């Protein structure tokens, strides 16, 4: 009996530690990424946050209303998303659409509180800030919909995370997509429809 109880106790504790380790890792990584980002900006190169990292910081994302700021990493494979939101697509000069994806339980937890009209700021390697305004958010089913990057107007920023926010299913099909568009430096809007 004691044996079983001990087993249950330790395995639950392990699970808890593992569970807590994920957000902790996400938080610690961001600190390391801050340094890598500063170095990247200073040297104007891709500098890796730790020697064996398979990703590097590409931008800084800030949401002033929520007092939130984080470093965005290149790519959106599982390993890089654990450390920061991932840059799915988009040019450095922000000419096309920019799509950034993040984990709903770590970095992009705050997306649910974003409202239409809120400001999102994106800093590139040169240190220039680009302001975006939230246009709205919607829930999509990733089994049915794909992102058509060519159809998105230039100057669009999409933030993608999983939905619903309090679900425990890590492989759910729903995604929460916040759509923002560039402000300030007004870009030429081109109405286009892409071939699929």
């Amino acid at each position, binding site marked *: 009996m004691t044996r079983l109880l001990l087993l249950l106790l330790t395995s*639950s504790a392990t699970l808890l530690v593992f569970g807590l380790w994920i957000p902790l890792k996400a938080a610690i990584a961001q600190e390391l990424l801050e340094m890598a980002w500063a170095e990247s900006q200073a040297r104007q190169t891709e500098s890796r946050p730790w020697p064996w990292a398979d990703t590097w910081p590409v931008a800084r994302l800030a949401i002033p209303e929520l007092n939130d700021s984080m470093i965005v990493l290149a790519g959106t494979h599982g390993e890089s998303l654990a450390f920061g939101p991932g840059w799915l697509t988009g040019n450095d000069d922000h000419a096309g659409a920019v799509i950034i994806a993040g984990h709903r339980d770590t970095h*992009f937890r705050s997306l649910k509180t974003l409202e239409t009209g809120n400001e999102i700021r994106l800093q590139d390697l040169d240190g220039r800030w680009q302001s975006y305004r939230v246009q709205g958010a919607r829930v999509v089913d990733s089994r049915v919909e*794909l*992102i058509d*990057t060519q159809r998105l107007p230039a100057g669009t920023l999409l933030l993608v995370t999983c939905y619903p926010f309090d679900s425990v299913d890590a492989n759910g099909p729903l995604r929460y997509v916040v759509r923002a568009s560039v402000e300030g430096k007004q870009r030429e809007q081109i109405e286009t*429809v892409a*071939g*699929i």
Partner: protein
Amino acid sequence: MIISSSPLRLYSKAAVSKRQRFRLKRFMEGVSLWLAVMLMLFVHPLYAEANEVENVGQLHFVDGQGQWQEPALVLDSEFDIRVSGLIADSRLLRSFRNTSDEWREGVFVFPLPEKASVYGLTMKVGERTIEGKVQPKETARRTYEKAKQAGQHAANVEQQRPNLFTARVANIPPGETVSVELKYQQPVQYQAGVFELTVPTTLTPRYMPGAPVSTAPDQWQGGWAMPTTEVPDAGAISPFTVNPADVAADSHRASINLVIDSGLALESVSSPSHRLVTGQDGQTFRVRPDGGKILMNRDFVVRWRPVAGLEPSAAIFHQSWEVEDYLMAMLVPGESGTMALPRDLVFVIDTSGSMAGESIRQARSALQAGLDTLTPRDRFNVIQFNSQTHSLFMQPEVATGNNLARARQYVDRLRADGGTEMAPALSRALETASENEDGARVRQVIFITDGAVGNEAALFRQIRRQLGNQRLFTVGIGSAPNRHFMREAARWGRGTYTAIHSPSDVDGPLKALFSAMESPVLTDVRVKWPGQHAGKESFPGRPGDLFQGEPLMHVVRGIPPMGELVVSGRLPGGEQWSRTLDLQQAAPATGLNRHWAREKIDSMEDEARVTDREPDQAGITELAVRHGLMSAYTSFVAVDSTLVRNAEAPVESDNLPTLLPAGSQAGMLRYPQTATSAPLLIALGLVGLMFSIAILLLQRRTIA
């Protein structure tokens, strides 16, 4: 695993301390328990990984009700191609196997060679074969729809673009196969002593400029692009494009059997796209791709080269069809031009999203190679376009070391993203001419693109309008470029078209292009057939200028194979050049009438474009029906007379996807996985802890 190893070490230490306290039996018990825990820890990530893999890479098709729908039709293709002389005759068998237990209609959009003349359709159901007929497009469509409703086997093939077709096959019984066999012919390309044949298998997703006609919901609807103001038929030319993993394992594979009977001694048969297996039988070569069936995500290209010194420089073919004579002549001037004037060279490079991946790398290296050919006498500029157009210099600059270095840096930084707004880029490239008009310079535009646009016709009109005395050369990039656009843009631009098939294939074709660009070999070309007068039509009506290694191809109707053909032109220096060919030496050939009819249809469409009028629809329809050809206004339809499906049984339509061209990146992205298992782990851990603490407390209470 780096993360998990440290807690494990802690546990093993704990196990060690256990050993000191307990007896052997209890120790074994403890160890096995720990092993069980560790096993669980190891198994968990593996299990999670396996779970994830299952979810990735499956794209299901959705019907109108948002229900799941696996692509139920499996597509099989067989190409049987026979080259004789300058014409390749192909039989393409497409089989649609229905793997569902419902009746299906299959719709498949597919490419054919840009100069293909489709002249036959046969539907095969089990042992029976039903011959198709040519009908005006609308009539054929109505015939097909009626047969589909009635429950008969029916097939319909329509032309959407000269190189893009739609096949529809109605009432495919559950678990059975219905095949359609298309017969088409195409002229073989002959350039600088090398013959080339292309078998396109897929298409690069086309970009549709213009504003959407209807207000489309902001989501992916069944895989078809919305009609736009510039491309009203966008929906008909934009099939789904999927990765090979998204179709059934035996779907979208093609077997190709090529027989080359060119009547020449060949030195080599090769392919820049696939590995080949060749067999030789006298002068006849049998070619097929190595390893059997090929995946339909890359054009199949075969080149053959006659034995050195025996490259043909002229040929005449003859055929009698319905009591009329058809003659086809091929002639290579065999002169080489000399570079006379300094040039203004404008490079235009497509950096749209469809170029992403391997294509943009090839395009960059092509452009770098182009920069290498510049001399300090030349001026140049680099223009890139996607949704916007951007140029390196405001106007062409002298090719100094400094400017070239700037250009190289600019080219290295090019990335592919966004739409394909070609019209403004063409204007930018062609307009700068009028500003500094001096006769002492030759102006040339090199256009590097995959041609993935839906508004080809409008662009040809624009090139014709803006060209002036410039020349436009196209360089086709990628595994499945839009060759129709490439060839026609170059023709309207009085230049040539060069295709690059793979990274290893960049140097050869480009070298040929750059040497050809030095200057045209023959201008003001005139072709005079013996006894030719009004009514004896020969095509092309106005042969364009010929560049080095480029042959003149001409076809005529109603001239018997007697007398002499005279071809004349002007050499770069200004002196006259002429050659005569003895028509009595004509070799017999087949399919010349169809080639002639296709050329005539093309010239009728050209005429309409030049005069800005609607093409002569009745004339084209009549010509196409007489020669049994598919055209923009005629299509094939085959209907079986027996009813197979009773009217109550439902029939569903399956739009078959095409494969994403190899090396290119999907324009459509999947939403990434954006959740961690943290909440689940924390919840499980907390529940377990609470549970065990509760038991512990309970135990204490019972003891007390």
